[in-house]
């Protein structure tokens, strides 16, 4: 099942990447990043079947980091919403060279 799990992980990762690149809603972009992290977790779990529990330990850390990122990221999104009343990346364009 290893090859299938890795292929699935790759597909989910790329769906996440496509989400980040094609969506303009900051919250959905952020959720796409979460999908990427989930895809990586699947790889780690698949590998941990081969090499021992290290992969699973890594997944626990990834979850912790995802939670921390969610807290900070959503605080940033709220703070920009206070200024601009939108989370659409197309309308958030004060900084242009």
């Amino acid at each position, binding site marked *: *099942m290893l090859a*299938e*799990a*890795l*292929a*699935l992980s*790759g*597909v*989910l990762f*790329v*769906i996440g*990447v*496509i*989400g980040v*690149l*094609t*969506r*303009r*809603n900051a*919250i*959905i972009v*952020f*959720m*796409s990043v*979460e*999908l990427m992290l*989930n895809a990586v*977790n*699947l790889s780690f*779990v*698949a590998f*941990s*079947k*081969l*090499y*021992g*529990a*290290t992969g*699973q*330990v890594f*997944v*626990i*850390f990834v*979850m*912790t*980091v*995802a*939670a*921390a990122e*969610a*807290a*900070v990221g*959503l*605080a940033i*999104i*709220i*703070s920009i919403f206070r200024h601009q009343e939108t*989370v*659409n990346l*197309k309308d958030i364009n004060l900084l242009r060279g």
Partner: protein
Amino acid sequence: MGNEFLPLLYSFHFYLFGLISIAAAIAFVTRKSPVAAAMWLVVTMFALAALYVMMDAQFIGVMQVLVYAGAIMVVFLFVVMLLNLGHPSELSDIRGKWGRIIAGFLGLALLAEIMTLTRSPLELKLVVPAIAVSVNSTGGIIGGVAGPLFREYLLAFELTSILLLVAIAGAVVLGRKRSAN
């Protein structure tokens, strides 16, 4: 591992949950409404949790449901509701031609990636015998994960406390009301 006894049933479920996760992920990136997208992402996460359990990572499966789907996604939904973004925005937020071209290229990259991944043979001498993995004779399922977590990776575990402290402090600093000067 179940697949010695019920190989067909095992692989049927494996593919079933795999397909569910892909379908839900595609639904997730194509939904306009943030709430619908979040719900589809939760479906993906549940399907992945099922896969984790099937791959002998029961503890991770539980964590996936409790932490990812249960806590992180709830925070997302909470923010969507807080900012009142629940309705799909009038303007489609999907990028135009360029976005789709990039997406097309990425699809090709994906194909190459999967070919490489599934075909590259792994070094079998590195593989730890299955008996040593997760089924720890004394600690049970969780003991197999807890052992390395509190021995080899103790430092990483301690460092996550700093990480969480930074995240909490940062979120508070950003979220606090502006002082009235």
